[in-house]
């Protein structure tokens, strides 16, 4: 018998806990389609009213950078400390800007 989860699609679940906040990744689940994924997500992740809005996205539709590539992906920023406010030393009386 094949495992049923092998036939079902994997979905990633994002929940907005409160109006005004971003949707945040909370986990994943298997479902037949988007509609079912949304219902499962409600049952799995918002049983205690943790959210006001849920997004479900097929995991296979997510394109992500690889942790292993992090060095060459981000190192162009590492030598630019001047992008940070703290880089600039100002006289005390005006240092609150």
């Amino acid at each position, binding site marked *: 018998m094949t495992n049923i989860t092998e036939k079902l699609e994997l979905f990633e679940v994002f929940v907005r806990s409160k109006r005004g906040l971003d949707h945040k990744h909370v986990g994943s689940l298997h479902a037949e389609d988007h509609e079912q994924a949304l219902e499962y997500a409600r049952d799995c992740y918002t049983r205690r009213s943790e959210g006001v809005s849920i997004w479900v996205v097929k995991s296979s539709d997510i394109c992500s950078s690889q942790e292993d590539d992090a060095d060459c992906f981000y190192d162009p920023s590492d030598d630019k400390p001047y992008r940070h*406010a703290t880089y600039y030393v100002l006289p005390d*009386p005006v240092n609150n*800007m």
Partner: protein
Amino acid sequence: MTPEENFMRKIENEEKIEPKDWMPDEYRKNLIRQISQHAHSEVIGMQPEGNWITRAPSLRRKAVLLSKVQDEAGHGLYLYSACETLGISRSEMIEQLQSGKAKYSSIFNYPTLTWADVGAIGWLVDGAAIVNQVSLQRTSYGPYSRGMIRICKEESFHQRQGYEAILALAKGSEGQKAMAQDALNRFYWPALMMFGPHDSESAHSAKSMTWKIKRETNDDLRQKFVDQTVKQIEVLGLEHPDKNIKWNEERGHYDSSDLNWDEFWSVINGNGHCNRQRIEHHVAAHDEGEWVRDAITAYNEKKRAKSAQNAA
């Protein structure tokens, strides 16, 4: 409860409105006007400073300025994206900018004549923008509010690098100090105008306040900026451009001169030094980028055709 009542209940309870919520048409229109104008300002704002990138006085200043201008492009993108959640497309917004139907902040119609102007822009123009944007972090529309939070986080370096640059001039030779003073004299007043007309003259203010799109009035925000700038001018050792600036113990604020509103309306209506140049440049840059957009579309079509062929 009617949709309208439900909407107002959210607003009154300080809840954010999110893209798929019901909202009055006028609320949507008001937001599109304000957010797109804000986005256009970020994008057009790259021009006066971009003017000095190749002539920055040192490699360090050049790298800093490049980074700042790059941030402005990013801020334009955040805001265009927030605006698109309201159902207007990017190309419609660009068209409205280029045809003059949509406005951008008038401050960017002033020319940057000297290197000191770049410092004055970071310090005063970004400083004024921050006062406004800090307030807008509490705007009632979710995507706009989140965009403002992200922008404010990135913006602090803009003001500090500007102040640092003008401080170097103010503490420099007589000539450099004079250049700093001249930049302050020219940019101080237009920076105050960035907050818009007096509340009594502002066409959209009342409704925007009721709907909490705006959280503080033009005049209150302007006062905040006037107050915080006095000390900053003093530390530079420069002369305050407003001869009537005076601490008012009773109000707990500085009193100041009224602005030249004729100039304000004249620049808004297209008669500033650089209005035509700014839009011409935007149109040219947009047209010159056409082949890049075409290439992306062509490449995507080619890839699609290829994968369809492989699947068959």
